[in-house]
């Protein structure tokens, strides 16, 4: 799939922008603080309906404007359709084929995007929520139903935490209501966990050979899912539910004492191993980078296999972060098949065929010249 055309209206530092893209590589060049990342972010928002940089959507609206609009024309399986995101002070609208989609899960997945930005290097060394967010976003875009279950899970979790707080302060003492919410929580938790296990198996399958290649065949990557319950990854939903139930029964008193839900997918984590060593703790900077890069590149193949089309790749200012060998590995992978957006301050020193053929866009304080 690829984006043919992108229109921005009152988006960050862009007042009015209308660009047509090459279906191979698009190189976005400009000094710092001119709007390169804003352009990348706009494509990301078009795919996920939220920004990777900020949870506060009003920031996306240009200063003193009422609304921001992102419009894209997408080609997918020889079909051509428009996507639209409108963010106003009142809220957000997502339109697919000009029709508003009320449910996020009906919109996400129409456009698949893989983004690799400097902050993605923290995927390995950062806090667990970054890795949970990674699973949720990536799983969500290939399996929109996952987003529905995630939303339901978070709602029940909120209700349950409120009840636990009330029970902690002895405002409520009735265990029946807690049991009801526990059952509701378990149902969605088990669905999430089951789907995460399947996704993880796919991720391993694609990431291992890539990591092997980037590391000049010196390193073996292993990814482990760290759950808050003891469960094997081939367990089915019923089995997972049984394990959750007995664990929740076991820790009920402790949960009331602490006033919050102590186990569940919202507390799980991923652990990356290189040659049997935990990369987060024992890996070098280089190994952490290689791991993050392998995972991101694996997603391209993973999405191709699940969706039937290559996603759009956004490389925001990362080329400079990678050494020559990793750079050329990255550029070789995308060659010719993936529509890619590369942003950088300068192309000096990057001598790769893929970039020489690229379409050039020069960004200068909110205007773009081709």
């Amino acid at each position, binding site marked *: 799939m690829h984006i043919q055309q992108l229109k921005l209206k009152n988006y960050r530092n862009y007042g009015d922008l209308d660009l047509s893209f090459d279906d191979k590589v698009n190189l976005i060049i400009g000094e710092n603080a001119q709007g390169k990342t804003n352009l990348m972010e706009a494509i990301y928002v078009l795919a996920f309906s939220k920004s990777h940089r900020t949870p506060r959507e009003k920031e996306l609206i240009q200063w003193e404007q009422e609304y921001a609009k992102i419009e894209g024309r997408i080609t997918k399986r020889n079909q051509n359709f428009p996507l639209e995101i409108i963010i106003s002070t009142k809220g957000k609208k997502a339109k697919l084929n000009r029709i508003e989609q009320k*449910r996020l*899960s*009906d919109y996400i997945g129409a456009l698949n995007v893989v983004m690799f930005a400097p902050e993605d290097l923290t995927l390995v060394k950062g806090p667990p929520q970054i890795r949970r967010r990674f699973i949720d976003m990536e799983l969500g875009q290939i399996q*929109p*139903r996952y987003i*529905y279950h995630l939303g*339901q899970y978070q*709602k*029940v979790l*909120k*209700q*349950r935490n*409120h*009840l636990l707080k*009330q029970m902690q302060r002895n405002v*409520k003492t*009735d265990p*029946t*209501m807690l*049991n*009801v*919410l526990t*059952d*509701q929580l378990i149902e969605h938790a088990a669905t999430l966990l089951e789907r995460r296990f399947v996704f993880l198996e796919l991720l391993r399958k694609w990431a291992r050979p890539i990591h092997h290649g980037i590391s000049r065949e010196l390193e073996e990557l292993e990814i482990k899912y760290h759950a808050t319950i003891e469960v094997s990854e081939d367990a089915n939903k019923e089995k997972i539910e049984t394990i959750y139930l007995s664990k929740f029964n076991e820790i009920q008193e402790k949960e009331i004492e602490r006033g919050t839900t102590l186990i569940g997918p919202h507390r799980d984590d991923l652990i990356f191993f290189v040659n049997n060593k935990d990369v987060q703790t024992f890996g070098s900077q280089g190994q952490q980078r290689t791991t993050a890069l392998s995972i991101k590149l694996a997603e391209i193949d993973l999405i191709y296999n699940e969706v039937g089309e290559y996603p759009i790749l956004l490389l925001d200012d990362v080329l400079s972060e990678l050494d020559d060998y990793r750079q050329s590995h990255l550029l070789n992978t995308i060659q010719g098949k993936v529509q890619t957006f590369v942003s950088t301050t300068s192309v000096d020193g990057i001598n790769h065929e893929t970039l020489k053929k690229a379409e050039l866009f020069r960004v200068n304080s909110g205007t773009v010249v081709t």
Partner: protein
Amino acid sequence: MYYPEPISKLVDSFTKLPGIGPKTAVRLAFFVINMKDDDVLEFANSLVNAKRELTHCSVCGHITDQDPCSICQDDTRNQSVICVVQDPKDVIAMEKMKEFNGKYHVLHGAISPMDGIGPEDINVPDLLNRLKDEEVEELILATNPNIEGEATAMYISRLVKPSGIRTTRIAHGLPVGGDLEYADEVTLSKALEGRRDL
């Protein structure tokens, strides 16, 4: 705004109604000024009377102008089935159907710890008392099919189950007369879960 006080008061009152913003409120207020005196009086009376004469039925909690309500007083209805709903409007929806011949119980809400609403804040204690006093064989739980409605139904069924009263939950799935292809995924999978033998 430079409206004479009676108008601005009227505008304020209209704004309190659901779905009415400031502009509509102004339009309605000016419309009222041009209405016939009798119509305005009747309108005002209807408002006051609706509020004054309607109460909640002491048995089922439905809105009524006589206590107990006409449904609770009706001896021809099936006394052994109670349908539990969240809102008086749900009773009216069920009654329009003309298929259900049992009685009702209106909860006036759903359990939601987040909003500080527990079982005792909605009409649950009254329901439990009713089940003790009346000869009830089946409780149909017709709360809304969202998280709070579902939790409320599960909660009530747990309290009632030990007494041996049959508790059922209304089905959710495809709307009748709709097309399968237009159903959203979530509804479709719920419909599949609730399939039955033919």
